[in-house]
């Protein structure tokens, strides 16, 4: 199967609903910081934007728009302790096994196997749903999360949109 052309499909959907053309974020360059240590010496954290919440937290609003809530996730939490609420993709498989979108078990196992040094003290769940306030992401919530990653001495950050 060829990669899905989500941009075209979403543009068509918006047009059918009478919206003006959506102004997509299109970046023309990006920074890249080379790693400074081997993978086996790295502390790894991970973010899901797939509407994943621990049972101790309120469930995400599956139809969220501009929800800037950001949950800290205990990396020791069991995969069965999560719920998935997100109307923007088919959550059937993620609800059966959260590792499909948020491989928390797998990450712990890779640390135990020595592929990475450790899992960070906090994983993250947020930026889910539709985020239209790009300036808030770029100027506030993104830098705030970065500061937390620095505080946790994270070497490698995995970002997983659903």
């Amino acid at each position, binding site marked *: 199967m060829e990669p899905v052309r989500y941009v075209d499909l979403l543009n068509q959907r918006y047009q059918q609903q009478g919206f003006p053309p959506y102004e997509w974020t299109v970046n023309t360059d*990006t920074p890249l910081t080379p790693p400074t240590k081997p993978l086996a010496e790295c502390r790894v954290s991970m973010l899901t934007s797939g509407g994943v919440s621990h049972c101790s937290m309120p469930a995400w609003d599956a139809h969220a728009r501009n929800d800037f809530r950001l949950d800290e996730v205990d990396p020791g939490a069991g995969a069965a302790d999560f719920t998935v609420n997100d109307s923007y993709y088919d959550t059937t*498989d993620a609800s059966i096994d959260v590792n499909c979108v948020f491989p928390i078990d797998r990450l712990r196992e890779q640390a135990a196997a020595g592929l990475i040094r450790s899992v960070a003290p906090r994983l993250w769940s947020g930026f889910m749903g539709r985020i239209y306030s790009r300036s808030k992401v770029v100027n506030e919530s993104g830098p705030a999360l970065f500061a937390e990653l620095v505080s946790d001495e994270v070497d490698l950050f995995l970002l997983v949109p659903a």
Partner: protein
Amino acid sequence: MLVSTGRDLTSQVLPPRSLFVNFPMGNPFGAPGQIDQQHRILRQALELTWEITEPGTIVDLDEAWPVSFAEKVEKSLLAL
């Protein structure tokens, strides 16, 4: 390091490094209970951090979803 199921979306945003997984949204690390598959994808994502040297590179995972997922795509679009 981004693990993506939307190649065209990712190519617009242009993260420093990306692994594109041509699976349905909701399955970037594979199918439920498929531990070996989940490990393969996770391991590749982690190791690519060292292999990618050109900013904005998107590497395509060399695995295919076993069936068409057009129905899942339609379901996600209906949420708009």
